[in-house]
């Protein structure tokens, strides 16, 4: 019987590093997109706008 232990673990490592790279990219990008700057708190007031006032859906 073939042993797939190493290919499987390498697959898990590959996925892990793929996600780590993605996480690092988006973490660094969050600085550029203003999530740590002076306007970073605006969004918490935006979400409180009552969308229910928009009318009733079907």
């Amino acid at each position, binding site marked *: 019987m073939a042993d797939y232990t190493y290919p499987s673990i390498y697959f898990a490592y590959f996925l892990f590093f793929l996600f780590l790279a993605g996480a690092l990219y988006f973490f660094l990008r969050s600085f550029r997109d203003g999530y740590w700057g002076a306007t970073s708190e605006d*969004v918490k007031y935006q979400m409180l706008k009552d969308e229910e006032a928009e009318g009733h859906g079907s």
Partner: protein
Amino acid sequence: MAAEKEIPSGASSATASHRPVHSDTAAKWFLMSSVVYFFVVGVIALIIAAKFVWPELLGTIPMFSYGRLRPLHVNGMLFGWLLAADMGLVFYFVPRLCGVKLYSEKLGVATAVLWNAIVLGAVVSLLMGWNQGFEYAELPLVLDVAVVVAWILFGVNVFGTVFTRRYPQMYVSLWYTMGCILWTAFVYLTGNFATLFTTGVNQANLNWMYVHNAVGLIFTPVGLALAYYFIPKAGNIPLYSHKLSMIGFWSLAFFYVWTGAHHMIHGPISQWLQTISIAFSLMLLLPVWTVVYNFFATMKGHWPLTRDNVPLKFLMSGVVFYLLTCFQGPMHSLRSVNAIVSKTDWIPGHAHMAVLGAFSFFAIAGVYYSIPRIFHTKLYSDALANWSYWLAMIGGIGFFVTLWLGGFWQGWQWNNPAIPFIDTVVALKPIWAVRFFSGVLIFGGIATFLYNILATVIHAGPRPQEAVHA
């Protein structure tokens, strides 16, 4: 305030005031089916708890044996109730946070239909004993593939909505939701497919990575997404600090995945791997504290609101349980504590506080908040909602505390070689009796919750305007 982007053409059919009208069809499908599964799987949970007290219950019928009902309870609660409710609530709040309609309601309904087929398939397969034999990954391969397909459909819908959003800055709930979708892909593929091709310790290690991250990278991010959305909305209070929530999100992203091996402390894995898992388990206190501090600071001066506001009551109780369970986790990953509590009843006490006390409380709050709004009506009974809270709360505390104490006691007995194992089983009988009666109370909370939601939907009519803005 964040500037509004131009509404993408085709992204939404905006009203005259540039606000979309949400039909919430996909959310309705997920939410209504999930609350029914919550009740049905609650019956299974009661039977399991009763079997601890009356082991002869239901005789020797294989389908009703503990070994078949237990995975049905776990998978039913995780995927039938909690994740389905989470997905329904995501379909509710993501379009609202993005200021556009859901990318595709039809795709959402198709996802819900497939999800229901998976849950019903799981009921049949697990009762028949078709089980892969891995914790949390018991479903047969064909259902695993179906889960992956459903998750891709769900992800396409959520990301499709986020990509067409009107507001450039994303609220933290969107971050957690997108993180959950991506991390689930990693965790589920590894836990349900890679484990099939490994053996021995490697297989166990991968499986425990999956088990721990099923909670930490699936239910935690989506649960926190709900809490970050519904606490400010239910109380009409702005979040204390969005920047702090970002610190919590990124620290969770970088720390959580390493902790799974703490399930194998004192087991046959390398000491360095055990130490890494302990170190990262302790580092989890950072994201946990940022979350809890943020919610408590949000509520500062507003605690009286919890008196009459049932969703807020569930949410803030869930935050307290989240703090407790996340304090327990790092502590019992320590070698000395682990030597006592590992594999004992302490663990189900801990796990139930996370999945029921924290994340199910968040989801119940979300359902109580969103269902009246989705159906344009008022909640059928505030008094009944209050009853569901207190039944779940008192039953939950009874359940958690009893199992912690019982588990600790069990662990001390197991560490004494002079005590025969069977004596440690007999000694725990009173603990399991309290566990059962606590379970009855929790089930009472679930039943009143289901009744209240169904009655709300059945009696749905024109909604008084004041209730809309309550």
